[in-house]
Structures are given as C-alpha cells and as structure tokens.
C-alpha cells in the first residue's frame, strides 16, 4: 500500500539529522489508546516528519523544537519517521490543527524501551567493584521536568546503582545550553537559570529516593559540550541539555 510505503533512507548514508522549529499537527488516527500521530513540517525544506516517537510529545497550542534522525520505518502517519526524536514545547503559540486519519493507521501503542518497573519488581543489584561513575539525565529545551518513560527510567537505573555502590559523595551538575544557536532562522538559547533548576530538581529527586542531602553538592555549567552517551540516542544538541550525577568514592 502506498500509505505504508517505506520512508526510505539510503542504507549507505548516515541517517538524516534534522533540527527545526514549527507548529505541530495532530493526526487523529485511531488504533487504540495513545495511537494518534504527531506531525511536524520543516518550513525550510517543506518536508513533513512523523515525530510521534518523541518521549515527551507536542502540545498543539504551542510551537515545538524538533530534533531527530530519520528512521527506516514504515510511514504510518503521513510523514518521514524520526526516531530517535525529541520534541520540546516552546512558548510560541500555534493555531490548533488536527487532521483526520485519511487512511493512515497510526501507531498502535507499545511500551517504550525506557519504561520504569513497578516498585514491587526486584531490581538486579549491580555487581561491584564500584568506582567513580557518571549518570546522565536529559531534558527538553528550557525545561527541568524529568520526562516520563525516559528520565524516570534513567534515574531509576542510577539510584539502583548508587544504593548498591554507596558512594562517598555525589556531584550533581546542571547544564544549560545557553549559547545562542540559529534554528529555523531564529536565535534560540536556554535560560542560564535552567542549569540550576535542573540540578536542584535532580538533587530533590535523589533525596526523595533516599540519598542523604549532605553528600550531594550542586554545580552548574552554562556552556556544555555534547556527550556521546547511549541514552542521548546520538542527538548531539539535545545531549547538552542535561544533568550529570557523578558518584565519587
């Protein structure tokens, strides 16, 4: 079927990476719960992308910053599939726009790979020996909110290790990508204050998970470099917006 044709990305080429600002469009397919499609048009190229795989999804009232890589995946929504992809809700307002299914099946919901387990599920104790290690959490643009089914999973993994390793001190460093960049013809930069907000929020999270506030020190950095971390999914710019949790012995 034409609608299910592969959005082909030549196998020999590295996947296309895109970064743009736009207003999102919701396509109301109905393949059950959470099955609707989120589409985003890059105005510079005229291409329409499917950004439904983002862990934190758009709000049709607001502009979004799209950062993603084109995937070899069937077109189930009416756009080139981006996966991995991040969508950050921005302050700029949009006119709501919803498309009907128009024959697109949408995406049947399945649990994402970063889905935190219930408390009742036993966590495997990470084996020692333990030495200095850094865990990272990643954020949306200008946001300190720990993303559901992403940051909670990463935090759960970190706290499981920290509880087993019992580090002497923990350094929480919040970063803000405050260096201006031009995206879709617009200069954007994170507020420097978001670095502290992120660090304090993660500190609060660690305390709520049983870590003594006294062993945590908080730092900020407003000129972060990207990191090559598997949980950043290769999204270079998004990897700047993070908190490092460094466990020291």
């Amino acid at each position, binding site marked *: 079927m034409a609608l299910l044709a592969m959005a082909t990305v030549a196998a020999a080429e590295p996947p296309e990476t895109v970064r743009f600002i736009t207003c999102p469009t919701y396509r109301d397919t109905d393949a059950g719960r959470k099955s609707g499609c989120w589409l985003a048009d890059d105005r510079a190229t005229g291409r329409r992308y499917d950004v439904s795989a983002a862990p934190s*999804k758009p709000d049709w009232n607001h502009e979004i910053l799209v950062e993603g890589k084109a995937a070899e995946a069937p077109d189930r929504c009416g756009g080139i599939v981006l996966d991995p992809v991040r969508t950050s809700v921005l302050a700029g307002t949009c006119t709501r726009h919803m498309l009907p299914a128009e024959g697109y099946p949408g995406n049947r919901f399945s649990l994402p790979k970063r889905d935190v387990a219930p408390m009742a599920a036993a966590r495997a104790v990470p084996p020692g020996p333990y030495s200095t290690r850094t865990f990272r959490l990643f954020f949306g643009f200008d946001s300190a909110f720990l993303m559901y089914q992403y940051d909670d999973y990463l935090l*759960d993994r970190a706290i499981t290790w920290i509880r087993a390793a019992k580090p002497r001190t923990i350094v929480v460093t919040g970063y803000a990508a405050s260096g201006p960049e031009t995206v879709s013809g617009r200069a954007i930069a994170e507020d420097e204050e978001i670095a502290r907000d992120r660090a304090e929020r993660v500190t609060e999270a660690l305390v709520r998970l049983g870590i003594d506030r006294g062993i945590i020190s908080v730092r900020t950095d407003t000129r972060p470099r990207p990191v090559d971390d598997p949980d950043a999914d290769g999204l270079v710019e998004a990897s700047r917006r993070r908190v490092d949790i460094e466990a020291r012995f």
Partner: protein
Amino acid sequence: MLGATTLLLAGSIAARASRDGPTAPADRWWAPGSNRTFPTQADYADTTGTLRVLLTGGPLATKGHPFFTPVGPNGRACVTCHQPADAMSLSAATATERWQATGGKDPLFAAYDGSNCPTLPQADRASHSLLLGYGLFRIQRPWPPRAAKGGAVTPDFDIEIARDPWGCNSGKYGPGAGNISVYRRPRPLANMKYLLAIGFAYDPKQGLPLALDPETGKPVSGNLMADGRASTLDAQMRDAAATHLELLEQMTPTDMARIVDFESRIYTAQQADRTGGAVDIAGAEGGPAKLANSQAGQLGSIGKPVWSEFEAWEKPAPGLGPARAAFRASVVRGAHVFRDKTFLITDSTGINAPIGFGNPVRNSCVFCHNMSQMGNDVAPGQVDLGTTNQPFADPMPWLPLFRITCRKAPHPFYGRVIYTSDPGYALTTGRCADVGKITLQSLRGLSARAPYFSNGVAKDLRAVVDFYDRRYTIGYTEQEKRDLVNLMSVL
C-alpha cells in the same frame, strides 16, 4: 455472598421502601457517642440496591472509640461525616434527612463548616443550602498556602474574589485575612489500602519521585484529599480534627492509632443491584470482599484489567430472567466502554501537561482510573478535568468564583488569568499550573453517596457521564451512557 433467598428478601424490603437491607443495623444513622457494636458486615439499601460494609478483623465496640466519639466542642465525631450507609462518605440525601429529623440541630450542621458561612443565621435552612443540596462542606484553607512542614509557600499567582455568594471569602474569612473558603464533598474513608498504595516510585505528573511524608520520611501515594494537603491518615486526621471537629488540642497518638486501625479495616462496595442481583455470583467478583482480599496498587493495564470483575457476566447464566440478564450485559458493556472507548483528552493539566503524553492524547476512562479493583490512579491523581475551572465547569452561581492571575509563566492551557470555583491542588502547592486539579475520586460505593465530583455538581451518575461527554466531546451513544451508569452503580 448473598444467597438467592437473601436477595429476594433484600428486594422485598426495598419494595417496601425500607432503606435497610436484611442485615443492616436498626438505625442507619451512626450518631456520635452512641454505644453500638460495629459489625463485621452490614448491608444498607441505597439508590440502586444494597451497599455492603465490611470490617475485617472482627466487630468493634464503638463506645469510647475516637472515630465514633465527639472529641471536640461541636458534638461531631469522624463518623458524623463518614457514615457507613453512605459508603463512609455522606450523601446530600442523608444530610437532608438529618435536617428534617433534628430541625437542623444535628452537629452535622455546625456553623464552622456545615453552613455556607458561620456569619449566616444558623437556624435558617437556606444558610445550609450547600450541604443540603450538594453535600458540600466549607473547607477553609490558609492563604498564602503553608507547606506540610509548616513553612510558608510563596504562590506564583494572585487570587481575587470574583463572586462571594455567602460572604465567606470576605472580611475575616477572606484572603486579606489569610483565608480562602471552598466547598467540597467528604471523601469516603474506606478501602484505604488502595488509596495509600504505591505502585511506582515516581510521580509522572510532577516529574519527580513520590513526595516524602515529612514525619516518617517515607514516600506517600499522593491520593488522599481533594487538594492533596495531607498525605497520610495521621495528617488527614489532624486536619479534620482541627477543622471539622473544631478540636483545639492535638489528638493523642493512641486515639490516632485507633482511628487508623479502624480506617484500615473498612471496605465498602455495592453488593447487590435491585435488577442485576448480587454482584459476586455467576462468576462475577464485585462487592467489598474482593476488595478486602486483593492486593492494592496494581496497574490494570499490566495486570487485572479495571472492572474485569464483571467479565463472567458476558455469558448469561442459564435461566436468568430477561431484566437481570439485560442489566448484567449492560454492566459488562459498560466496563468495556470504560476501558476501551477512546476519545481525545485535551487541555487537562496532569494529563496533557507537563507529563508529555501530548495535547491532545487519545485514551479512555481507564487512562487515569487505572488501578485494578479500585479505579483510582496508581500514580498521585491530581488532574484538572475542568469541574471547577471555566470555561469547562458548569455554571454554579451558588459557589464562590476566584480570579487567578499567574505571576510567572501562564497556565499551559488557560493563559494568564483563570476563573475557578475551587483552585484545588493549587491551594496546597501555590502553583498556578495546578489550579483546578482535584485528586481523582474513589469509584466504589457510588450508589450510596450522591452527588458526585468534589463540588457535588453531578447530581447522579448520569450527570457524571454527561459532564465527561461534554468536556471531551466523546460522543457516547445513549446505550453507552446507560451502560456506564449501570457499571458505576454496581461498583
């Protein structure tokens, strides 16, 4: 389990317009200070059938028990507003009966919160119209809010009074004097293990691990009280004693422990429907015994589907009369509609923001009402359905109206200015993004405790369904609405 004979008896008693079921105490009303024994099982006739109340661990002598004893000056006890026959809540119908029985002298109508405002003439029925008509008590919250540990909370919004029909948001009762008055239904004190259960370590609505009880340092479920101002039964008790009971001194640790023990042993649910019969026969697993015997805190989507207790009724039992068969089939369909009929959920904080599900997101009732057996939220359940916020709320001229102005970031869906009859969770957190969020309601024993929603605006279960249908443009068919009502009536 009710046997067939008992059911028939219950039916005949209902037909005689008696309000008590076959094993009910002689007096439905549990007056404070009465010397009675709370039985291990009590059945009460309600609007659609029979409510059952179970007390696990044996009967309880209520004489001198702090839940049943008036400890404050106004003559009330906890049981005054948490009546067994009303599923441990209090229906507007019961309030009206007490007014008629006592000429308004019952401690239930205490000026402090059982009237629309203490400044009104207390002998006038009209001064208690919110309790009599909508089952609402006045809840006086501090303004600005205070943190659970006692420190001040700096709100990120201003609050002004746009409408004050009873004068209780003016003068010494108004924000200028450090107070805000809202009006809310009492929440049922039963099935508490479900409301206290913790399924996951994280609160996805807040983007943080669960909050900690300031006293014990342990994580809390976040599912107590409409505005989440108390997160443990102890904290709830202290709040209630200081306000509803007007108790000036602290309750003793011994009394609090006895109340918690009682509250932890009480289970209520509908046991039988007048048309559908007992809810725990023919393979069905309704009723409070199932609640008492099940593990709390399980997510229906990965375990026992919500309201699958009635699955066995999908196949009609041989010899079932047509009316009973039709009712049971309707309940089963209602459970399917509840779980499977999806619609677009829009502009609801706690769902569409900031959690990241997207705005809109397609899902069903069970998206939020997701806990097996109970239908409350496994995560802390603070959500803005629009029951109190304009433009989604129905016109409610009998309630105050507040004008909220967000000082920092605007509310994600309402903008800078919000009109609300109850800021809800925002009166606890001080955040404008939380205006109108109300902790999800318990869904058990509904037939015994109308009206519904925190502000009592839904006079019956059909009005609940109609509100959702309007709010989210669901487009339920008439059949689906009836099926949902029938389902909810047997929970």
